């Protein structure tokens, strides 16, 4: 995706790609659709050996990136995962690793990072709520002081693969602001309600916290001081999600282009008709533009958590969240009836692209974020316009 990868990064990409192409044919992904977990814990270990969980963790904490730019390195993995519609919470696990590496206490880092980096521990990020905002302002789950520390009340929505997670990173509202807590998924008072998932390679759940007891030492970062960290986590999550979507789109586009050359109608390949040639040329423009936006969002996240990272994460989300589904829908259209069948792999990609567009803040959410950044404050963004 990034046309200017270093030699080390290319090697990293090639190793990941080779593993995924040989070990993760679509038949294996399909085989997990009806699996109770929908996910292969054995593969997690192999991913860890390939470095999938170490990129956002510094070397002194047992991690290490390829180039020093961990988000860009991880975006390389995300793109390859998208190409095979890889199941499981690789992205949210990395978001939790990032939070622990940058905000966690040394005790938390020592207790959890080796397991996450080594692939023994799966963590996921519980950020969204019923209001579907995915940012700090949307956090309503309350952490109220208790004898032992805090008590969590509220429900997190659309938590990815919560049913297989060992740890949950929970964003909560405390008396003076936002806080994050690391909670074992088995803690008393947690109820995981599985959702039906558009993406067949990925499970979502609503997670209810009914007076879940946490201690002050479970807080990741300062109590009341998590706003900046949550913003950074969202920017990184969107950058990685963008790379994953682009990987899926790239595979889908190649598949569709090959079909347009191969499939004949009226005595000639359907890809020789201008109606399709022009469509495919536009799709190529959107795809290349999506790649450029995803790469820029990852670079910006590596450079720091300033205005540039906010801007590029939301620009990538708005663009890829709109054009990505359009490309995928056009790919189905060009395939004709065969693209509408369960047995064709196309819908597995389409589902991932459509689901990614919705999660981590819809394009409209990110439009509102950009509107605010551009100084358009005619209506307070988010006020009275929640779309639940």
């Amino acid at each position: 995706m990034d046309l200017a990868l270093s030699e080390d990064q290319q090697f990293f990409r090639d190793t990941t790609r080779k593993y995924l192409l040989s070990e993760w044919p679509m038949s294996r992904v399909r085989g997990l659709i009806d699996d109770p977990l929908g996910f292969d814990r054995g593969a997690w270990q192999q991913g860890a050996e390939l470095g999938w969980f170490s990129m956002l963790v510094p070397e002194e904490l047992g991690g290490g990136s390829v180039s020093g730019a961990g988000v860009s390195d991880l975006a390389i993995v995300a793109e390859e995962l998208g190409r095979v519609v890889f199941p499981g919470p690789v992205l949210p696990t990395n978001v939790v690793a990032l939070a622990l590496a940058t905000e966690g206490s040394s005790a938390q880092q020592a207790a959890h990072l080796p397991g996450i980096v080594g692939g023994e521990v799966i963590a996921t990020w519980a950020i969204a709520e019923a209001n579907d905002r995915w940012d700090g302002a949307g956090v309503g789950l309350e952490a109220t002081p208790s004898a032992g520390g805090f008590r969590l009340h509220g429900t997190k929505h659309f938590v990815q693969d919560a049913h297989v997670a060992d740890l949950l990173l929970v964003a909560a509202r405390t008396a003076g602001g936002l806080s994050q807590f690391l909670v074992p998924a088995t803690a008393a008072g947690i109820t995981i309600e599985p959702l039906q998932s558009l993406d067949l390679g990925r499970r979502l759940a609503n997670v209810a916290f009914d007076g879940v007891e946490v201690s002050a030492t479970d807080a990741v970062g300062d109590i009341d001081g998590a706003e900046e960290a949550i913003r950074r986590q969202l920017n990184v999550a969107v950058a990685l999600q963008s790379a994953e979507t682009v990987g899926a789109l790239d595979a889908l586009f190649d598949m569709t282009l090959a079909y347009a050359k191969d499939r004949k109608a009226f005595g000639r390949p359907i890809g020789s008709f201008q109606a399709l040639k022009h469509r495919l040329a536009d799709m190529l423009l959107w795809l290349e533009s999506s790649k450029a936006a995803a790469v820029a969002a990852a670079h910006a996240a590596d450079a720091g958590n300033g205005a540039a990272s906010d801007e590029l994460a939301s620009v990538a989300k708005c663009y890829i969240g709109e054009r990505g589904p359009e490309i995928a829908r056009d790919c189905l259209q060009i395939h004709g009836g065969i693209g509408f069948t369960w047995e064709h792999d196309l819908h597995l990609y389409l589902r991932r692209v459509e689901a990614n567009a919705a999660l981590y803040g819809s394009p409209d959410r990110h439009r509102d974020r950009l509107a605010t950044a551009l100084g358009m404050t005619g209506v307070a963004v988010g006020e009275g316009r929640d779309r639940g």
Partner: protein
Amino acid sequence: MADELESAELHTYRERARAWLAANIPPRARLDDGSYEEPDLMAESDPAYIAVARERQAAVFDAGFAGIPFPVEYGGQGLSYDHERVFLEEQAAYDTRSQVFMVSINILGATVVEFGTEEQKKRHVPKILRGEEIWLQFLSEPSGGSDLAGMLTRATRDGDTYVINGQKTWSTGAQRSDFAICPTRTRWDVPKHKGISVFILDLRSPGVDLRPIKQINGGAEFCEEFLTDVVVPASNMLGDENEGWRVARGLLNIEHAWQGRNSGVAEAVGVDDLIALATERGLIGDVGVQRKIVDLHVASHVQSLAAQRITNGMTSGALHHGYGPIVKVGGALNRQRRAELGKSLAGSVAAGWRPGDEDRWSRDLLSSRSATLAGGSNEVLRNNVSEQVLGLPREASPDRELPFNQVPHN
């Protein structure tokens, strides 16, 4: 934002360019809402305007900011397209009048570098870069623009010269120009791509008659040209005889690559003027309006990123050289979307205004319609991309293998 993430070398270059521009070129005039005032539509045909433009281009050249990616031996700077982009971004705030030389330098100067003889390059390229010679292209003809290889203008050999007869059209800025790159047909008994020869044509030659064409936006930057028994030395041929399609195609590739590089910069204009317009019209509190403006901002920002990606990819060889046109397709569509949104936000004021009042949004709407036509229509460019990059088959074209004198034409 752009310079927040760039390398130290480019950042230093940017600061040097910024300092030089501030000290040597007057800033562009701004309107009340902070946007730049566009030059008067007739200004570019005004000799006094052009004389100042030439002086400023000479200053840019002498300071080492002209022909940034051109080879040093022909007066260029031998630097990267990223350096060129940085300078273009910085000069956007200054009245360099560089639009007068855009085509001349970046398309035609570059074409001479690629296809010219050593003598042609030494003789012309430094003068093109310094603004002493302004060049234009004679591509379209009244019988067809998209079907470029179907040209009817004829060149006939006569000793050491050729004699050219025919008609060209849609040539931008012919009145102010000194030389044209002019493809002609030199053989009629072979298929259309095999009988073309390209000439460097001195526009002061006897028999060249230029007539401005009035456009829908009131301007007249286009001309039609009548060529009657125009004599050109054989040494002015660019490329080989009857092999001119290679030059014409190469020119188009250079044009598309340039349009790609430039569209990214042109996109960096921002949406402040649209926000100001929506605010003035009392529409800025409307979430729908906000989102439309944001969409344009997103499209512009991504277009600029895509232009950089594709330019760098084509330069390094990571991407096929045929990618250029899709950047132009995207840039042209954004240009039109921007004008359409401005006109829509302006409301009835875009339909009726007092004499002397600002008519920019209606004017911009009209002007923007040429974006998807000039320099290759979006439809032809989509064909080019789908064939060259995606490898899709051509539509059946009955004229490709026929000798040209047997091909039906207008």
